[in-house]
């Protein structure tokens, strides 16, 4: 991407724009606003359920994740021009070894249409995405651009999962994050989402106290998250690591699965399989919640460069 970014900056300069950079953009991930979204309990009351000993997945398992690298190219007038490389991949684990099953990439330039037009012909393989919001504002446009890159990545992840499913009918696919991006996932009995972020909490008050006091190796009762109305899903929290002496969220993940009776029936077994994934430990600051398989995909995508 460095070459592409350089080419874009050159075009921008030739178009009379001002080359610029904003390092922070590249490392910013999605930010969820800290809030409560009360969920609906499926098997009330909310309680801690011991799931049993960790149990390895019986067969091959795929792990899906996506990455985005965003750079501010500069400004055409006052309009920011953002460049991004978005990737998604599925790494399939066979005989304890992970290998690439699906890899996808998109390179995009996000800016207002006039700014894109001012750049002229884009470098090969770079797609334009126009910001069509009203009231141009340099900072707000940057936020719009980042949101559009987010969505681009989400769509690429969906495409990668689709490609994986086309070749692997009955293989588990573990997705980093929620699975509400597409109804396809909500209807796929071989898909699980592992959410590490707890900005949006499903309970408040005493229930939240129960929710966050989940011991290691336990799950909560199943609930339906409020934010997943379009694609109905079932969810439950699972404590992967003991949080004693750590933060309340240490080792806490929220699992998302299709809203089916089958999910309710096998929630314990799926939790056991996920508990087995705590080893090996990821080489990452979020190792308490980041499954090694997901970490591997992320590292693989980062190794592909920008």
């Amino acid at each position, binding site marked *: 991407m460095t070459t592409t970014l350089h080419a874009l900056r050159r075009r921008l300069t030739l178009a009379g724009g001002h080359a610029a950079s904003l390092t922070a953009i590249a490392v910013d991930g999605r930010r969820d606003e800290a809030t409560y979204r009360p969920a609906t309990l499926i098997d009330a009351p909310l309680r801690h359920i011991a799931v049993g000993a960790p149990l390895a997945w019986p067969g091959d*398992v795929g792990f899906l994740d996506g990455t985005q690298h965003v750079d501010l190219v500069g400004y055409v007038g006052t309009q920011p021009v953002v460049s991004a490389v978005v990737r998604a991949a599925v790494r399939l*684990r066979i005989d304890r*070894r992970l290998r690439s099953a699906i890899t996808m990439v998109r390179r995009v330039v996000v800016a207002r249409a006039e700014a894109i037009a001012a750049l002229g012909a884009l470098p090969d393989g770079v797609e334009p995405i126009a910001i069509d919001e009203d009231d141009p504002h340099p900072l707000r446009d940057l936020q719009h651009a980042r949101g559009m890159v987010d969505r681009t990545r989400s769509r690429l992840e969906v495409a990668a999962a689709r490609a994986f499913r086309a070749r692997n009918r009955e293989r588990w696919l573990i997705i980093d994050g929620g699975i509400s991006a597409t109804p396809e996932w909500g209807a796929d009995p071989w898909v699980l989402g592992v959410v590490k972020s707890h900005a949006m909490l499903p309970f408040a008050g005493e229930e939240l106290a129960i929710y966050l006091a989940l011991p290691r190796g336990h799950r909560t009762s199943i609930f339906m998250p409020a934010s997943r109305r379009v694609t109905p899903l079932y969810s439950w929290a699972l404590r992967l690591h003991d949080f004693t002496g750590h933060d309340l969220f240490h080792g806490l993940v929220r699992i998302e699965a299709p809203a089916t009776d089958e999910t309710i029936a096998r929630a314990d077994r799926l939790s056991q399989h996920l508990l087995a994934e*705590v*080893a*090996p*430990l990821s080489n990452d600051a979020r190792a308490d919640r980041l499954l*090694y398989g997901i970490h*591997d995909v992320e*590292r693989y995508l980062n190794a592909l460069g920008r």
Partner: protein
Amino acid sequence: MAEILGRVVATELKPSTPHQFHFWTTPAAPCGIGAIVRVDHDGRTVFGVVTDAMAYADLARPLDAVIGADGDPSRVGDEPTERPEIRLWTAAVLRQLPEEPMQPVPFGAVMLATDADVRIALRMDAFMHANGGTGVPVGLYAAGGLSAPVLLDSDFLLGPEAAHLNISGVSGLATKTSAVTFMLRSIFETFAPAKGTVAAICFNVKGPDLCFLDQAATLSSDDLAMWHRLGLHPGPATDFTLYAPYKPDGVNLNTLRSHPALTANVRPLIWGLREILDFAEVVLNRDDVDAKADALIDFLAERVVGKKYQAAELRDAPFTVESFADLDEFFRAIFDFLETQRGADVWRTHHVATIRKVRNRLGNIATRSKGLVTDDATASDLPWGTFRDRSTTVIDVAGVDPLAQDLVFARVISRLREHLERRDLGVDHIIVFVDELNKYAPADGPDTYVKRMLLDLSERGRYLGLVLFSAQQFRSQVMRRVTGNAGTSLYGRMDSDELAMPGYAVLSPAIKAKLASLPKGELMVRHPHFTQPVFVRFPRPASLSGREGVERFPPVADLPFADAVMQRLRELDPSVAAEAVRAALDGRPEAEVRRALSATTQRRPEDPFAFFRALLRRTIAVLPVEPRRGIAPLSHDDSDPFAPY
């Protein structure tokens, strides 16, 4: 096209340079320390040799492994995902093509070197051509199921470009003796006739090491395959002679090659006064040889020994000093003369104290080197002037006094040098193999004659065709200038303490670790054409080792004097009758018999016994003495106290 083994990788912290690069492989890749690899990229080819290796996983800290396994090491294998593991190799550049401009190694695919690659990587293409060349096989390079002969350039092994070979390694692991034995065979078989003739003189300094080089060993099929892969024919030394001094009894040879079946090419090595006087400095310690003693020794060598020396003040008849006994007689005459001159203590400018000192020291030689140095004038020496092409001569000094060993080294090497300077040795190149170099040319210790001579050999020998093949356990304990002049160095298994010495600082820790655990028959080679050390395997030599030799041909016990004489004569003529020999020896002084035997074995006449008997002094029959006739004595009367008788 060879299979891709790995790929060059470079980071800011581990960049590719013109002399070094890094590459990664899978853990199962058939790569190892010492492997030669090839990198191809955009018309540039780089050859390198692996010098270091690392393996690591994606763990940030060891503690993460503990936490991941819940503190239970046995659970590590139960993890659903195996951590990815990297094998990261470091290689030193052997050669780049094109050689100019010299650039950092490109990020290309890495392959194991093939036969042809090894030739190019080690620059063997410079001296190996379709119609021959100057290559001398030193061993097989092997990696990943491939093997390729590695050759040394004889111009850099035997001169004139560079010369000398030095071998280091701990004892007993087929490093030194086996490697030299193999190398001699390899040189004799491949040294281009156009480059001249070559022979070898090996000093056997311990046990039976080199005593059976002419006896064929049984080789395994693997060894045979290696011989053939190197293009060599396995076989023992074909033109072999062993020289050994006598034991102090003067008739039994001081060697472990004394089995009757093997004595046909064993010769005695005997020197007289004339042979060693020029090397008196060797046997006199440094303090002894002051200017005065030196002057007296020179005087003896130039004016007295081997000449008719007239000194009227000593006696009327001229002195004929041919042996130590004659020399002692000469000295006694001087002392007698000085005693008659009241108060005189100088004879012909030489002080009596100096004369006494030189007399004592020279007299000691015959005592301490008895068996090598005779007290008479007979000598049995190496075939100066008639050394044969591709011949091997072993001088067995294992059983003699260290002083005598020094004497042998000094004289043999000095004579070799003299003959080579005159080009009348019989061969154009002579390889001198000296084991235990740390004993004869130590890094520290006194400045001895032998040490200076070895230094001179290593520094100037190559111009003459005098090539030093030397070996020692600890290279660091050998005079640096001697080892430094060796164009080619071989290293077998090394002691860890030795590898910690500064001389090995250029080797990577991995190379050192490999050297410290090198299996039998493997060597690390440094040669002027190779920009980096290379590991090779060499086959077992096709001749018996010393241990095998003494097992198959056990040495015989020392024979009584008469039996030993008989055996020596029978080696020349098996039909010599025992009774005839006993009769000839009956009543003879042993010194006389030894002299006659020595002359016989040296001359090798058609009828050895007749020759031997003729050299013994004629027997004079004992005649009874009859009382003289004359006037009868006067009668004797004991009772007469006044009687005159």
